[in-house]
């Protein structure tokens, strides 16, 4: 197949599929609840015993206390990802907290939080 035709097919194919998915609601992010956050953490870290969970008011992140220490769970596409909070850097932003995990597979992310949440989460994260 000529390279130009392949290129056109690939560009229009990817763009068309992306548009179709977006317009049919496949970009929606789920909101976490205490139960879904608990289930998600256990899925990522089945060895951990969860002690407490705080879901952000905005609903896309949760701070998880377990016997392995403090961790962060957050919505990623239609699913979730999670990291134990060891060796990360936390900085305050206008809308929440920026966490740098120093992990090439988990680039720095900003978590929207209320002013009160931001203060309590930051204190817990820095103590971790």
């Amino acid at each position, binding site marked *: 197949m000529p390279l130009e035709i392949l290129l056109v097919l*690939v560009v229009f194919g990817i763009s068309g599929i*992306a548009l*179709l*998915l977006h317009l049919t609601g496949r970009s929606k992010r789920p909101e976490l609840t205490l139960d879904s956050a608990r289930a998600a953490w256990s899925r990522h870290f*089945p060895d951990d015993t969860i002690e407490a969970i705080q879901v952000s008011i905005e609903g896309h992140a949760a701070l998880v206390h377990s016997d392995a220490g403090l961790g962060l769970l957050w919505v990623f596409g239609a*699913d979730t990802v999670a990291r134990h909070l060891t060796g990360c850097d936390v900085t305050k932003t206008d809308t929440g907290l920026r966490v740098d995990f120093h992990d090439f597979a988990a680039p720095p992310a900003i978590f929207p939080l209320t002013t009160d949440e931001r203060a309590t989460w930051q204190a817990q994260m820095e103590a971790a």
Partner: protein
Amino acid sequence: MTDQLTYPDVVSLAVPLFIALILAEFMWIAIKGRGGRYETRDAVTSLVMGAGNVAAGLVLGFVAWGFFMWLWRLTPLDLGTSVWVVLACFVLDDLRYYWVHRFGHRIRWVWASHVNHHSSQHYNLTTALRQTWTSTFTFMMVVRAPLILIGFHPAMVLFVGGLNLIYQFWIHTEAIGRMPRWVEAIMNTPSHHRVHHGRNARYLDANYAGVFIIWDKLFGTFVPELDEEKPDYGLVHNIATFNPIRVAFHEWVGIFKDILQPGLTWRDRLMYCVAPPGWSHDGSRDTSETIKAKHLIRHPEDSGTPGFQ
């Protein structure tokens, strides 16, 4: 000896088919409300990885091709180009695929290339296209050397490899439950391959087959999909990025960070490259063996069941 032999670039020719089947699968899921999930950024990442794989082949393909042609000039054997030879080449290349794929899960240097194919938490036809950009750097082209040395032309070997890749496209779906029993017995199917993509302890390091599942049965790596345990797709430690560059290179970065740690012996540094994924010099990480062992501590009732035998 035939030097000039050409076959169509079947993977490029199949691109319209890939797009049509992705649309068909998506419509099926949307209409029926079952049979899989799609998410925009996940799907786009997979598709971009697929396009990047083709581009990497165009840029770096000369390395493997040069190596194969060097072998071809070396060997006195030429099996010719009959249909039977092509069929034999297809079957033997599938055996080659099984071992390369198994190495891809058991040797971290090769896993660094293959990991991106498992990095989606979804399992749909776009996942099939989430392919590596860095296979050249794994040097796994050497596993094809015996095929060429026994007389299969390099062009034929690449042609059947392309057919193998196309076959594997349709098995990346949840829209198909189980195929007829004889098909499930011989061929790799959506059910068998869902197991391969599962991050459940039970399903780790299983079902490496490309086209014929018989290789897994022969070499003891076959695990059936259990109705009572749905595969949970993705990586043991899921990545938190849709950025194709990060998807493509994250495990390579991980390897280099590990081997550059201060205070390691040269053996430790080598092991970070060639030991199974999850190996660490201080035992602080989990390999698939320790994950299975820990699962059995939590669920001793699973001992002796598929995936824990």
